[in-house]
Structure formats: C-alpha cells, structure tokens
C-alpha cells in the first residue's frame, strides 16, 4: 500500500505527521522523502547513510565546431531552454531543460548531443531496528524536481516493503502530481486557518482530478469547532486525526525531535490508522 502525505500549503506539519506515521509502523513500512526541493526527513530520523545514487537527466550539449547556427533547435524548444547568442552560438540553460530531446532530434548537423547530467541524488539510510528510508534531493540550480521524485518512487530499495509512506512537496503543481500519482491513498495535512483551508481545497481538487481516495489530518487545532471541520462535513471528507496546537511540539521539532516523543500515546492510534487504511484500500482496490 502506498500512502502519500500532501498538503497544498507548506508548513502545515506534513513531514511531522508522515514521520510519526512511519515511526509507529516502521516494522512494516519504508519512508520516501519526495519533497526533493527541500527534503527534511533525514534531519529527524538520524539514520546511517548506506548508499547514494545519482539521478541523471539527458541534457543537450552543443558542439560549436559542428553548429551552423541555423536556429532550428532554439525554435523547437518549447521551454525556452536554448538561446542564440550571436557569435557565441547556442546557449543551453540547464535549469529550464525538460530533457525532451527535441533539439537533438531536429539538429541537421549533429552538433547536439544528449549528455547524462546529474540533477539530483537519492540517499538510502539504515535506521535503528532495521528500518530504512530514502531521501531524494534536487541539485541546487536545477528545476527537474519531478524527475528526482520519480526516481525515488521507482528505486529498487523500495520493493521489499508492503507499505510506502511518501512525504510529498507542498503546492499542487507537477511535483505534487508526480509524488501522489499511483498512491493507494492520500492523506492531506492541513491547519484550521484561512490559508490552510484555501490550500486544502486546491489539494482536494488535485487529488479528485487524479481520482485518488483521500482523507484529512488537521494539525494545530485550537478550538473544538473550526473551519476545516465545517468544510469537511459539507464535502463529506473524512477527518482521520486532529492534533491540538501544542507549543511543546513546536519546541521539540525545533530540537530535531519527533511528534511521538511529545505524544507517545499517538503511536497506538497511528498503528490503528494504518491498519484501517489497509482494510479500506483492500476493500476498494
């Protein structure tokens, strides 16, 4: 079973919740940090890095000796990743390249070659007690986050595990889609604020477009009745868990601690939560 944790808004407690869910069930799951632009799980899990793989993309390289400056490559690129720079010839902006191969295919003189270029890396960590987790990391200056996310999700190290807990990036753009696609269930973590509600609605639209089953976790709850509860009731969305606003949690997080250290009783709840999802996903494959 693949469970993706997403949110729309950043900083709602996605990683905090995903880590707690993983730690409560680490005997049967693997953790995938797919927030590759800003991966943070390793700061809290403190494992031992045992393997590091490079994620590469094919990015064009122009051989100036063969280039006749016809400009077909620049015209063919839909992402403005190539530009004609007068006598200097064709410039490639790696960070804009989608690695589609259009320029290489169109070049009449064979001056463009696709070169494997590192855009990120995947670290695999061992944890105390035998568990593992994977962390994807986009190289600074590159925009190919979806390629790195895809590589983490397909990594062979994930295959032995029955459950994948996927920590997703904030937002609702292509990185979010890549991270949650193929999940059996999506948990949207939000907070009872106008920003939290607004971005939850966007995330709900995103998962509904992808036709994925989902439910909500509300973090930093201050009052019994709140705007997320009202929205979820209207939309008939299940709230799996509510976590109260607690300065101790914020302080523990700032020291690199996890939710279960402040709220040890949560472990059993999260154990049950995963088993319930198992039943639910099993019933509606």
């Amino acid at each position: 079973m693949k469970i993706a944790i997403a949110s729309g808004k950043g900083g709602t407690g996605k990683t905090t919740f995903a880590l707690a869910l993983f730690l409560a069930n680490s005997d049967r799951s693997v953790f995938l940090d797919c927030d590759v632009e800003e991966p943070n799980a390793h700061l809290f899990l403190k494992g031992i890095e045992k393997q590091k793989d490079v994620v590469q993309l094919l990015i064009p390289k122009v051989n100036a000796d063969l280039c006749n400056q016809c400009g077909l490559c620049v015209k063919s690129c839909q992402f403005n990743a190539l530009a004609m720079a007068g006598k200097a010839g064709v410039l490639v902006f790696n960070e804009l390249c989608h690695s589609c191969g259009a320029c290489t295919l169109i070049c009449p003189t064979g001056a463009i070659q696709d070169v494997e270029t590192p855009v990120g890396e995947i670290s695999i960590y061992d944890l105390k007690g035998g568990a593992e987790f994977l962390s994807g990391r986009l190289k600074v200056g590159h925009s190919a986050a979806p390629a790195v996310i895809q590589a983490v999700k397909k990594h062979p190290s994930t295959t032995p595990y029955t459950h994948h807990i996927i920590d997703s990036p904030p937002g609702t753009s292509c990185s979010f889609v890549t991270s949650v696609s193929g999940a059996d269930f999506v948990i949207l973590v939000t907070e009872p604020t106008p920003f939290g509600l607004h971005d939850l609605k966007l995330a709900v639209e995103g998962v509904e477009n992808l036709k994925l089953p989902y439910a909500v976790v509300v973090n930093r709850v201050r009052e019994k009745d709140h705007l997320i509860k009202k929205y979820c009731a209207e939309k008939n969305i299940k709230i799996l868990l509510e976590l109260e606003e607690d300065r101790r949690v914020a302080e523990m997080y700032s020291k690199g601690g996890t939710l279960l250290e402040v709220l040890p009783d949560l472990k059993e709840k999260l154990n049950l939560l995963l088993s319930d999802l198992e039943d639910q996903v099993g019933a509606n494959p």
Partner: protein
Amino acid sequence: MKSNTPKELVVVSGKGGTGKTSITASLASFFPKKVLVDGDVDAADLHLLFNLKNTKTEDYYGGSIAEIIQDKCTQCGICESLCRFDAIIFEENRYVVQEMSCEGCKVCVDHCPEKAFLWKPDLNGIWMESETLHGSLIHARLTPGSENSGKLVTHVKEIGKKRAIEQNTPLVIVDGPPGIGCPAIAALTGASGLLMVTEPTPSGLHDLIRILDLAAHFKLKSCVLLNKADINPKYEALIQAEIKKFDASFIGTLPYSKIFTEAQLKGQSIVEAYPDSKESIYLKEIAKRVTSFLGL
C-alpha cells in the same frame, strides 16, 4: 515624468509555512507606492489578506499539448518511441496521448510522418488583477495538477512589472513559492533582491541554506528575516553564520506569535489588524531595513 525601472523584492523561504505571506502583506503597509504580485501560483493565499475590488480575470495558456488525429494515424509507433515522458500509450488498438503525462514538448507533433497530430493550447489556470487599498495585486490560480506553474509565475511577474512602470511606482513586491525548483527559480529570476523568511528549526536552517545557495547560483543578493525566533533561541547564531558564508545580510527577527493566525482569521495583515502590537513595530523597522537593502 521620466520612465523608471522598478525594483523587485521577492519574498522566498525554501521551507513552506515560515510566514512569507503574512510578512509580505504586512510589509505592504509601509511602502506607499508599489505593485503586489502573488508568485505562489499553486497555493496562492496573499489575496485572502486584502479586500479585493474589481477583480479582472483572464485564462492562462502556458503551452500546448498533443492529441492524435485517429483518422490520420497509421500506428507506426514513432511518437511512442520518441516520447520521453511515457505520455503516448497504446490502448484499445490505438495510440493515445495521456494528457496528465504530456509535458508539451511537441516532439511527437514535429516528427509524425503522417502529420496526425493536433497541437492544442493547454489551459493551465487563470490570472487576475485586483485593486486593493495597497494598490494593484496581480495574482493567479494554477489549475491543481496542471503543468507550466513556472511559466505562470513568470507571467504574473511580468504583468506586475508592467503595471509598476505604467503607474510609475518604484517597487514590486512578489510573494514567492516555497522550494528551490521550477516555480521558485521563476520567482527569483530578475529580482533586485530577495527577502528570505526562515524559522529556528532544523528544517528552517537546512532549507535556508539551499535557497541561499540558489540565490548565489543566480548571483542575487539576499537578506534574511528569522521568524518565530524565540521557539529555539540558539538558532539565531547558526543562521547568522550561514548568512555570513553566503555574503547575505540579516535583517531582523520576529517572535513566535498567535497574532499571525488571528490576523488571518480577520482577513487582514498583522499591521492592519494589530497596528500597535510589538510585531507591527518590528515589521516597521524591518521595512526600513528592506528599503535600504534595495537602495530605494
């Protein structure tokens, strides 16, 4: 009046939820003439803190996507073999484009020997222009799950700059997205300066280093604001040390405060909702420092 190039301040953070939007809205009060841009197009919240008037809406097409004309397709399979995004699949005895996977690169369209493709504009969302008490706000709504978020960020920034020139205002303030990928790169490209909002946590520091690194990569100057500073006071020194390494400047701190949420619930910025609070007084000082940071 002579034409001017407005300065562009982009507010970024690396990590999400550090307070970018609340701080952007508050700073707006201290700059009398500016244009506001919400550059976080896939989770845009800035408009929730303003009273919007006369919102004009336009569709946004960031690119195009391919569709196979079945009558012309001879099923040679060239498109499938050239597509690097696995967007062309063979199902029910025909090739089809999976729209969710199509990145809009046009390789299939250009290399089909039968010219059996349509190249359709891809509606990625809308962009809007609203009047607020603080002047024009340019904002957008990416259709959740849609492509071209980076292009939409670039688009709202371009409109913002254009309006600033037309209105002869010296400043554009852009509320940026989290992260360091495509939308973040689009947001910070061409900025006069970056204001980075961070928090005293392992993630805040880790993510700040990555956005500082990205700013250095694009040779942009940065200043850093530490929000929620009192959650863990020992971080200020760690953050200062990183700022020094990257030759950025430290611009101040704000305390962990419930009025961020209280103001949000009122649909106002902190400075509007609680003008006499200590947070507002700090923010006024921060605005002064931003002014000199940008050389306004």
